[in-house]
């Protein structure tokens, strides 16, 4: 079962640039939540605060609280522990280029010291099935490099890699923006299936995509969360004028 995320008074900076200002929202467990907004509005920074990737940049700073289940991720745990519970899929597929398909999926476990071969085999198979890639790669698991797959397959490989460490939350930062329409629809189908088991947060520039996969949608603008509501409400009857202007294409 996934857990919900409670964000309270979250502020983030890059150097002197105040990129996130007083964000408050509750992301529901076992649903997909979409974050939309124009480029540079802070939505990527926001998801990177949810697994403490934001602070890997030396000039970055965060205040406020983020609770995942009972855990305050900035108070109660180390970043590496958080990142094992909160998986991330990036904008561009980034498989480890020197590793086989199998090793890519197993990397999160292997490099954290896990080595039981039989269990690893099972987890790799289950993760690749969950990411709908198993049938396409099962014959070349250890022969082919992760980098030899097509872009769409690479992204599903990255999803499998994130799932293999058994996270509760899956963050996806524009996971389909570098992919063609067929691969995009595969990723969307996947999000649909995965959200019963995981809490999913997906950043997207594609508003149709948000409408297709997410129950809840948040609209970011200039570092602030303008509106957060059910996807249906955001796209049919938003409360804020700026949200309406954005989704009807008047700017952004």
């Amino acid at each position, binding site marked *: 079962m996934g857990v919900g995320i409670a964000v309270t008074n979250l502020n983030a900076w890059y150097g002197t640039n105040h990129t996130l200002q007083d964000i408050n929202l509750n992301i529901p467990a076992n649903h997909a939540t979409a974050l939309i907004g124009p480029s540079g509005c802070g939505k990527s920074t926001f998801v990177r605060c949810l697994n403490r990737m934001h602070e890997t940049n030396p000039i970055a700073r965060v205040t406020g609280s983020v609770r995942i289940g009972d855990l305050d991720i900035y108070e109660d745990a180390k970043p590496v522990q958080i990142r094992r519970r909160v998986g*991330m899929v990036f904008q561009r597929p980034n498989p480890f280029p020197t590793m086989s398909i199998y090793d890519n999926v197993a990397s999160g476990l292997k*490099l954290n010291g896990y080595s039981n071969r039989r269990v690893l085999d099972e987890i790799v198979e289950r993760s690749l099935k969950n990411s709908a890639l198993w049938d396409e790669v099962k014959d070349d698991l250890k022969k082919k490099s992760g*980098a030899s797959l097509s872009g769409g397959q690479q992204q599903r490989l990255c999803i499998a890699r994130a799932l293999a460490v058994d996270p509760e939350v899956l963050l996806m930062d524009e996971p389909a923006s570098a992919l063609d329409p067929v691969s995009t629809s595969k990723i969307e189908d996947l999000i649909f299936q995965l959200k019963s088991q995981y809490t999913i947060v997906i950043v997207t520039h594609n508003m149709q995509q948000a409408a297709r996969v997410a129950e809840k949608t948040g609209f970011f603008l200039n570092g602030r969360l303008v509106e957060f509501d059910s996807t249906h409400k955001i796209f049919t009857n938003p409360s804020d004028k700026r949200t309406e202007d954005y989704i009807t294409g008047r700017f952004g």
Partner: protein
Amino acid sequence: MSTTTSDFRSRMRAVTDDAVTMLAILATLLVIAPLVAIFGYLLYRGASSVNLDFFTKIPKPPGEAGGGMANAILGSGVVLAVASLIGVPIGIGGGIFLAEFGRGTKLANTIRFTADVLNGVPSIVMGMAIYLLIVSPRHSFIPFSGHFSAFAGGVALGIMMIPTVCRTTEEMLLMVPHAVREAALGLGIPNWRSVLSITVKTASPGIITGCMLAFARIAGETAPLIFTALGNAYMSASLDKPIETLPFQIYIFALSPYEDWHRLAWAGSLVLIVLIVMAVSLVRWVTSRGVLKGNT
């Protein structure tokens, strides 16, 4: 009129294209010409003296025909092994520190500058420094110190390897895409583990090339060995004793007044180059096996 202008332009483009291509081909020929010339001349002068005796016998006194350079070939192997055992781990470790852990710190900048200066130290000075540090004085904490030895020769050459290995390792690590590092961090892999198992592994083809360059460079060094390995007319593989090496023996024989020794020097030069090429090819072949399909 516009048609003729565009005809003229497109013809000019084709001519420029051909000219630049020809210049590039010419430059390439100039790059490989010296190597071909040297190798050809060595074959011409040395090939006739390369025989089984050359690889199995030690040199004969002047005036006696025959003899070989077995002791120098073995000695070069020993000294280069010691040098690589010192230069490769320290160089790679330093490069990892510069690129990953110390990036932007004052310490890293100092080390980088020092490595660049060390790279420019003349090799004869390196030999003298090692002579003054471990050949002349005896230290209880440094093995084989206090006299000329294969070990001292290996140390001198090993230190000469460090800056090249260190700087190429750093450059290669910095070329690993940021996305690959982020992927590892995003999986909750600790930074040190991600550096060793992912970043270094991704950069390993370039790091290996750097090590081979450093190896090929020191394999032909003579000057640092004059004050350290000294030379040895007999067969020896002991780290504790003076040892013969190919470049050093070539130097001695080429300067001698004896025709037989000149022939051996030519043969030695040829064998040295072939051995270096073989060592580099072997490492490339071994490390390229196990590379997966689809990798470049």
